[in-house]
């Protein structure tokens, strides 16, 4: 694997606040890499540093092992797709796509050929002479994508390119972008706050929070094995409950939570009895079962709400001591409906439970 973009200990401070905090990422050639995080987490700042619109406070960016920190934005050879398209409203579709080639003083015939090829690729050849205002949002987004790709950039940078589109167009375009990217084999850094987009499109994802990288991994790993409490809460839904380690035996711990409840946790190292931990598991990993007579084992609670969502049903269970657990279940026609207010047992497989350091607060 050759490194296309190497982000080496990048920090960016804006008077007083740290927007990007010592971030290090290596991105392979042809990889689709996503920076995922909520607004203000530093992902866009990092992207703009890579594009050269901002200068980092410290650290180095390399493209194919060449430092580019002192290369001005217009000589970096990155192709950027902006959140609000940034289409040139006074230029035709063709001239928009040809802009970067002309800025590079490409010969006329070459411009014609390469733009033509791009227009075929994005299936807008028929609209080459149209003005941007005559195009739909989705078409405009394809034009700016073509505009960024036609210059054969070292890296394609995409800043929430789909967030201004309606849901149907978004779903359609994210598949299209992924297909185009695979076809052209272009290294891509994609910024989004939409976890679904990130999981669906990426080879690897970096989850960011407060300027720091929380975890870099494949989408599957991010979802299945969140390394931090933040990642567990940000990607997918998660029950987060305060608990205390009761005993540790052969790598399996038992934690106490709620009012007298107990859960087994697998595959742990470095926890000792008596430590406080946050217990995390996904709603769909838990199962609601009739309560046995013996309630000293396992996790028990009272069903306080049933939320019917069509295909799935969510049960809200009060396990005592102010802790609430959500359980998601597939709804099969004819299945027995639990009784509101009844007591139930919660079954959570030991390998689906994760423990995190409790929050400082």
């Amino acid at each position: 694997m050759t490194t296309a973009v190497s982000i080496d200990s990048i920090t960016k401070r804006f008077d007083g606040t740290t927007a990007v905090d010592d971030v290090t990422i290596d991105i392979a050639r042809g990889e689709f890499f996503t920076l995922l995080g909520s607004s203000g987490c530093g992902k866009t700042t990092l992207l703009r540093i890579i594009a050269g619109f901002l200068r980092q406070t410290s650290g180095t960016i390399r493209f194919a092992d060449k430092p580019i920190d002192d290369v001005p934005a217009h000589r970096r050879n990155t192709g950027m797709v902006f959140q609000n398209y940034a289409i040139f409203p006074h230029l035709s579709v063709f001239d928009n796509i040809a802009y970067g080639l002309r800025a590079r003083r490409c010969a006329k015939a070459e411009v014609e050929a390469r733009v033509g090829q791009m227009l075929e690729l994005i299936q807008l050849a028929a609209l080459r002479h149209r003005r941007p205002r005559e195009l739909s949002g989705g078409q405009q987004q394809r034009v700016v994508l073509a505009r960024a790709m036609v210059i054969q950039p070292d890296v394609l940078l995409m800043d929430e390119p789909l967030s201004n589109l309606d849901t149907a167009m978004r779903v359609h375009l994210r598949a299209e972008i992924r297909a185009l990217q695979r076809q052209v084999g272009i290294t891509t850094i994609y910024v989004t706050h939409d976890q679904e987009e990130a999981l669906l499109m990426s080879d690897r994802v970096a989850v960011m929070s407060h300027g720091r990288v929380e975890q870099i991994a494949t989408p599957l790993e991010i979802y299945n094995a969140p390394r931090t409490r933040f990642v567990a809460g940000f990607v997918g839904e998660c029950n987060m409950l305060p608990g205390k380690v009761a005993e540790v035996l052969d790598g399996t711990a038992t934690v106490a939570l709620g009012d007298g409840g107990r859960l087994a946790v697998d595959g742990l190292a470095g926890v000792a009895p008596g430590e406080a931990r946050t217990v995390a598991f996904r709603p769909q990993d838990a199962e609601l079962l009739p309560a046995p007579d013996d309630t000293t084992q396992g996790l028990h609670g009272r069903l306080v709400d049933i939320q019917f969502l069509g295909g799935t049903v969510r049960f809200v269970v009060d396990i005592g001591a102010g802790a609430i657990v959500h359980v998601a279940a597939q709804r099969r026609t004819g299945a027995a409906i639990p009784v509101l207010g009844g007591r139930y047992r919660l079954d959570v497989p030991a390998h689906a439970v994760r423990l995190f350091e409790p929050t400082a607060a």
Partner: protein
Amino acid sequence: MNGTLAAARRLLGFWPAVTAGMLIVTAALLLLPVFNIVGLSFSGGETAASVLDNYRKFFSEPYYYRTLINSFIVSISATVLALLVGVPAAYFVSRFQIWMRNLIRAAVVLIFVSPPFIGSYSWIILLGRNGIVTTTLAEWGIPLPSIYGAQGIIFVFTLHYFPFVFLLVSSGLKSIDQSIEDAARNLGSSELATFKNVIAPLLAPSISTAALLVFIACFTDLGTPIILGERFRVLPVLIYGEFVNDFGGRPVLASTLSVLLLVITTSALLLQRWYASRNAYGTAAVRPLTLQEQPLGKRLLAALFVYVLVGMALLPLANIVVSSFLKANGPVLLAEFTLDNYRRILGTIGRPLWNTIFFTTTATLLCAVFGTMIGYVIVRRPGRVSSFLDTIIMFSFAVPGIVLGVGLVVTYHHPPFSMTGTALILILAYFIRRLPFSVRSSVGMLQQLSRDTEEASVNLGAGPALTFVKITVPLLSVAILSGVLLTWSNTIRELSATLILQSGRTVTISIEIFNEVVNGNFGVASALGTVLILLTFLPLSVLFTAMGKREDALV
């Protein structure tokens, strides 16, 4: 090593170079002249005992300090009166169903752009000692108050400058949401109480800006008080007189007076900005205030008020056009149709007409180019240098034409420049005076434009200069063009700086009119005035019809 090279390249980039260039230009044309008159005012002449001599002289002799008091009297009175008529007029036209509202708005624009000194002598034709109205009414035994002196100046200022208030309050009303008024009424507030307690406070920034503009315009106006003042002298008239007396020597006293004028206008500007910043609510209307249904009686009264006001303000303009076709015997016009006045200016108008158009056009183009670049630097490259540039541009609002004129003479009269009386100095004076217009219009537009589009261009490999030319300028073209038309209309009637800086070769139409008025050739002055009104109004009609601009684009 690599790092310093890169740092050097960043400093020598396109925009740093442009910023440095703009700083030099504004420093040379604005800061240096102001600095020089300040220096001269403290120099005290040959027999000076103290650097404050000139100021002591000013404040100890009634002949001098009386003008300052007079200036305050007319400016404050005119500002108050302009607010008293302008605010209700704007409210009525915006909120009440008054007939011919669009026509009223167009008329206000016409009043706004017409040269103020034309209004003054037109009022002399109407209300002067031998005025048409005066003599007619005298025959019926009705005496009229005099149009000369303080009351006349206040009267003309009020009618000429109330459009500032009208236009700003109209646009202020548009930024108030209907729901705010509805909420007040719903909570039991009467119509008048709603205006007083809710609408008016929200208009405070608009009203205070308008008051500032009227005050500065009145305080620095030279033409009107010269024509109407007679023995009542205001500060700008004194400056002009002292300057003409000193010409060729060192205009020490004129500089001292200029500094006083500048201190007052700058203080007014700072005071208003402080007040407006404390009272800004930053409202944006989703649904602006709508027209109100009013009983017929109220509508009639409101309409009457607006018609009388606008009619009176339009009267001098109509009078100019009419009297340009009347036979004139010196300042006395006879009721006899003739084209004589036009025949008489035909031979002499060539040079001033050419000068006026040439100076105005060149200065306007310079404004467009430099103003757009400065606007770009202010919005897109924030930092200490750019906010300093912003401050200079704001300051140039406060520098009166006559002060700038004196400053430029003090700075560039002597070799190696010897620029007084040249076309260049007039063009540069017009340029620096109107630069804020084009800066502001491109700043306004740039703030609304996301910088993504320009960054996309840079990202695709176009450098900063190429991006500015190929992306920014086309995106700003509408703002630049409207800035051009506004600048042109405002520059073409410039009088006070021109009076100081012109020579026989560089005479403009404004100067010609002024000279004809001073010499009492009212017929010829009217013909020239009609030409000037046409030249002023032409670009505006393009702006409002072809470009679909609204009249509040003016202020």
